[in-house]
């Protein structure tokens, strides 16, 4: 929100990169890396196309699973009053997310205003998903003008995703102005990276500069923490263009891009290194020119 907080967030993310990580549920002794490859539309890359380094040293790829992998997804909407400029995102979930689910995919919808609410269970049935989602998103009007517990909501969403197997993702739509949280930003970010869940975020990117005196200014950028969480988990934040506009891209378009990204992810398995609890930096690169890999940046050995 301002220069100091930007510093805090940067520190927190730095801390994440160095001290956190995670291990998705996978075969014993193996770590799953879900990798999005920009520039690839074939879905037919092989293990030889990837380079994985753990703590800067090359790592062997034990197996590769080509996309699409069955997806377990939570879509979480900020329903506070300040989100009114985002339009009716509820309807866009049906059009841009539920309608493109594939065989094996399951999801549930949730939201937060002065409280956090999630649909009671994951489902593959579009009607059930939408009906349960509508119920979960039915906040009273006064609830929308209370706190915005973003970090609590992320924490709650991760708690239902962590027991699931395979590719797990959280799509979060929020203005990033978190208030009234039990969970700290750092704790939520740490859990996000540790869980191995891919976090995509639709949020504002426009910083606001508030002059404080002749020589000082506060830089307000609510999306910066979310941006770092998304990047650290192998996800993205939209709008990606920090151009000075207050217009958000249509929510449906962004949601569709997130779904295409998740359905195009390769899953690499690598042997876990180090003692249980140890944290390891992950770098994934592509050997072919024109292709760029995006994946989680760390894991913690179980």
């Amino acid at each position, binding site marked *: *929100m*301002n*220069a*100091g*907080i930007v510093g*805090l967030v940067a520190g927190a993310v730095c801390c994440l990169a160095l001290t956190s990580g995670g291990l998705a549920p996978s075969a014993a002794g193996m770590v799953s890396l879900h990798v999005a490859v920009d520039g690839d539309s074939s879905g037919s890359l092989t293990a030889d196309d990837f380079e994985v380094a753990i703590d800067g040293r090359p790592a062997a790829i034990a197996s590769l699973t080509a996309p699409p992998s069955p997806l377990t997804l939570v879509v979480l909407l900020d329903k*506070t*009053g*300040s989100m009114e400029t985002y339009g009716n995102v509820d309807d866009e979930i049906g059009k841009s997310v539920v309608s493109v689910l594939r065989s094996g995919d399951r999801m549930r919808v949730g939201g937060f205003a002065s409280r956090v609410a999630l649909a009671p269970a994951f489902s593959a049935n579009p009607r059930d998903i939408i009906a349960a989602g509508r119920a979960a998103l039915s906040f*009273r*009007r*006064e*609830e*929308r*003008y*209370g*706190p*915005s*517990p973003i*970090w609590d909501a992320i924490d709650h969403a991760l708690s239902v995703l962590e027991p699931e197997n395979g590719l797990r993702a959280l799509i979060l739509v929020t203005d990033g*102005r*978190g*208030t*009234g*949280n*039990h969970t*700290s*930003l750092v704790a939520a970010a740490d859990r996000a990276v540790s869980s191995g869940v891919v976090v995509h975020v639709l949020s504002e990117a426009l910083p606001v500069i*508030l*002059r*404080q005196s002749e020589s*000082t200014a*506060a830089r*307000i950028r*609510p999306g910066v923490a979310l941006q770092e969480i998304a990047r650290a988990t192998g996800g993205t934040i939209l709008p990606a263009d920090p151009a000075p506009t207050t217009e958000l891209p249509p929510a449906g378009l962004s949601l569709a891009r997130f779904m295409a990204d998740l359905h195009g992810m390769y899953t690499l398995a690598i042997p876990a290194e180090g003692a249980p609890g140890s944290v390891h930096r992950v770098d994934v690169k592509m050997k072919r020119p024109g292709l760029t890999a995006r994946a989680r940046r760390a894991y913690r050995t179980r």
Partner: protein
Amino acid sequence: MRLPSLFLALALLPQQPAFKTGVQTVALYATVRDAEGRAVPDLTKADFEILDNGKPVEITAFSSGRQPLTVALLLDMSGSMNPSVLRVRESTRRFIDALLPEDRVRICTFGDEIAVSPVLTSDKAVLNRIVSEELWPGGGTPLWNAVFAGMQSLADEPGRRVVLALTDGDDKGSLPGWKGSFRDVRDRATREGFMLYMVGMDNAAIETEPNTEVAALLDDTGGAHFNVAAAADLGETFTRVAEELRRQYLLGFTPARDGREHRLTVRVNRPGLSARARKSYTAERR
């Protein structure tokens, strides 16, 4: 703390008089200052007199020791506070630094929304974390809505309950879901014994001239207001508020049981000293 067992007994009771069983006690927290406005320590029970509807009552409880605070700290984040965001943040940290280990604080902000933190804690690291992560400027000034929410957030807490609001403007209406008004704030504060304090930013915060409605309310609750000039140190003002709260005397008396509102007066029987404490209570019906 000179009378730990007595203090403990009082601290466990809400300030409102509606105790259901046993001997009832109304607790008063009195600020005593000399003619120069300095806080006066080391007074004894014999220095005080409590008048209930003008008649002296026996002081059944007394402590000059430090009593823990329970504070809802309300920070105005309306758009007009934009030029002061960093100042507010740093000053709030100074207020937190000035707290004693047993004090507890809940941080709340108001503007676009009224965000009452679910965390009421004496953990300074947690409070500083909230200050770092949860101050977002923007919106109007739903001042009374926020003060009411602050009181609500402390409704079940024992002991001295303080709502301290930092604001730079008059109330500009409430948010959806609250149809109350200044009158509701006044009624609840006086009925339930909340102490209300306000810090006015840049001398434009509240109507702080004597005899205005707001100043009268703060006075009635035993609280006070402080004005901060644009160039002045807000942190210093926050520290003064913390210091005042720390130096208050705890007085207790047995209330009437007639179901009526009673006017209270606290006097100090020493020349040149004045006491400030809540000015009314509502008695439970027999």
